[in-house]
């Protein structure tokens, strides 16, 4: 296979655009967060559609107002939030898009969802640091991409003739407000009444939502004392001493001291990633087999 390098140049972007893949798996022993894409479901789907390796790197675009230009032939795919996509100024609806040298792609208004994924045949080819291309400040030089950045990929003109399935994007799942969770190690420490309140109420995504954590607007009274530092994961729900509910996301620290009251299922984590500030969620407890 020909492996000539082409570049995607960022002409315009709002803050937060980054390169992501599956993240740094198994490096928590050195305090390294896993990082990786926020919405794994959309990521897996676009790489599957592009016949990529499951860990191929994509662009994660959390805000409208993104524009880029390609200098070589390739095929790209757009997943995640439903957004207005324009190629060379023309609105397009296909998921898989053939690209010729000089083509410009624009991601406009988000109609539903909050993160767009831009995948590319064979994945983006930026440098891997500690097993991953995911941007994370302190490990990579920067945490986000900016105007003028040039992102390498492998170009191949024959992609133009390859057939890709024209599967229609299904995003109805990110309208789901009911999120499947498991009881966290400290769930049983909550008084019954508070447990019920946690499971019966609806909670709102606050403006404090980023790749590290989503804080919820509503408070929950907390009578559990702070814990000795213990491992946490993306999808761990913490309850702070002030009663704030925090859902840890992909860039979360690997350990924490707040009580761990819930743990998201993998799919619930993808769903919540696509929620916007002000949207509501509800937890649905799923029990695990009992440990004697």
């Amino acid at each position, binding site marked *: 296979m020909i492996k000539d390098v082409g570049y995607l140049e960022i002409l315009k972007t709002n803050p937060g655009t980054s390169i992501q893949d599956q993240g740094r798996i*198994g*490096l*928590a*022993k*050195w305090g390294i967060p896993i990082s990786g894409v926020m919405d794994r479901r959309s990521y897996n789907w676009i790489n599957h559609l592009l016949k990529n390796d499951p860990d191929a790197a994509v662009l994660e675009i959390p805000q409208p107002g993104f524009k880029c230009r390609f200098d070589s032939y390739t095929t790209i795919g757009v997943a995640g939030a439903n957004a207005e996509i324009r190629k060379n100024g023309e609105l397009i609806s296909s998921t898989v898009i053939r690209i010729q040298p000089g083509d410009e792609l624009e991601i406009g208004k988000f109609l539903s969802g909050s993160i767009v994924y831009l995948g590319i045949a064979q994945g983006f080819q930026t440098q891997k640091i500690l097993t991953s291309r995911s941007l994370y400040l302190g490990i990579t030089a920067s945490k986000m991409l900016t105007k003028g950045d040039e992102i390498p990929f492998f170009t191949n003109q024959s992609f133009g003739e390859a057939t890709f399935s024209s599967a229609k994007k299904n995003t109805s799942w990110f309208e789901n407000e009911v999120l499947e969770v498991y009881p966290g*190690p400290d769930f049983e420490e909550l008084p019954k009444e508070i447990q019920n309140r946690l499971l019966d109420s609806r909670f709102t995504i606050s403006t404090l939502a980023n790749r590290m954590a989503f804080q919820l607007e509503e408070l929950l009274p907390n009578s559990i004392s702070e814990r*000795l530092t213990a491992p946490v994961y993306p999808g761990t729900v913490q309850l702070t001493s002030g009663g704030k509910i925090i859902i840890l996301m992909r860039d979360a620290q*690997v*350990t924490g001291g707040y009580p761990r009251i819930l743990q998201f299922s993998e799919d619930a984590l993808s769903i919540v990633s696509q929620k916007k500030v002000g949207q509501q969620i509800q937890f649905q407890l799923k029990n*695990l087999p009992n440990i004697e």
Partner: protein
Amino acid sequence: MKPKLRQISPVLIELFWDEKPNDILLNHLLSWENAIFSQFGSEVIEVRKGFQTLSCVLKNDLKQSNLKAWQCFVETSIDLSPLPTKLWEIPVCYDPELGKDLISLSKSLSLDIQKLITLHTEQTYRIHFFGFLPGFMYLNGLDPALHFPRKSIPDRKIEPGSVAIGGSQTGIYPTESPGGWHVIGKTPITLFDQNLNPPVFAKPGEQIRFIPISREEFEQLSTDPKPIKSHD
């Protein structure tokens, strides 16, 4: 000192000890970690450590039959391998310019600065695990006379190498970060280098000691780094 088993999700299972963190508990944790890898190595992606916890990430959803195997496993007794004896010497400059909370903390603790430095450097600290930031060591052994609550409003920016006290703990910020601990000094050494494998020099179970250095030595080691000293 048997661990309690708790399942957190289909792919997360945790061993928990309701014990005070000390060398004995750490010895158990590290020995159990080895036992997990020899018993379930092919099923486990990673084991994360906390003070009282070993948390295992599994490759596949845990089935009822495997849960039984884990339950039997935590009931067995394992051989304890002794803690490592390696001791690392971390040079620290306790200068109020580099440790911007040194003066205020000494006042709050009613200790003069020299006494505070002596209490901080006399102790040997045990590395329990890495967490919080890449390369951040959770250390046990801070003299109770130096325990002091974290700041209620964290500082926006703490520089890499800052040596600080927060609650009953002391630690070194490996990378720039916001933080609520009281900074009392700074080390010129690099604690985390993403271009090295491993990116950290020490391992859980090993010990460290803070060695006071002058401002001149600090500047010299900053421009011309020397290998970090250790004893076995």
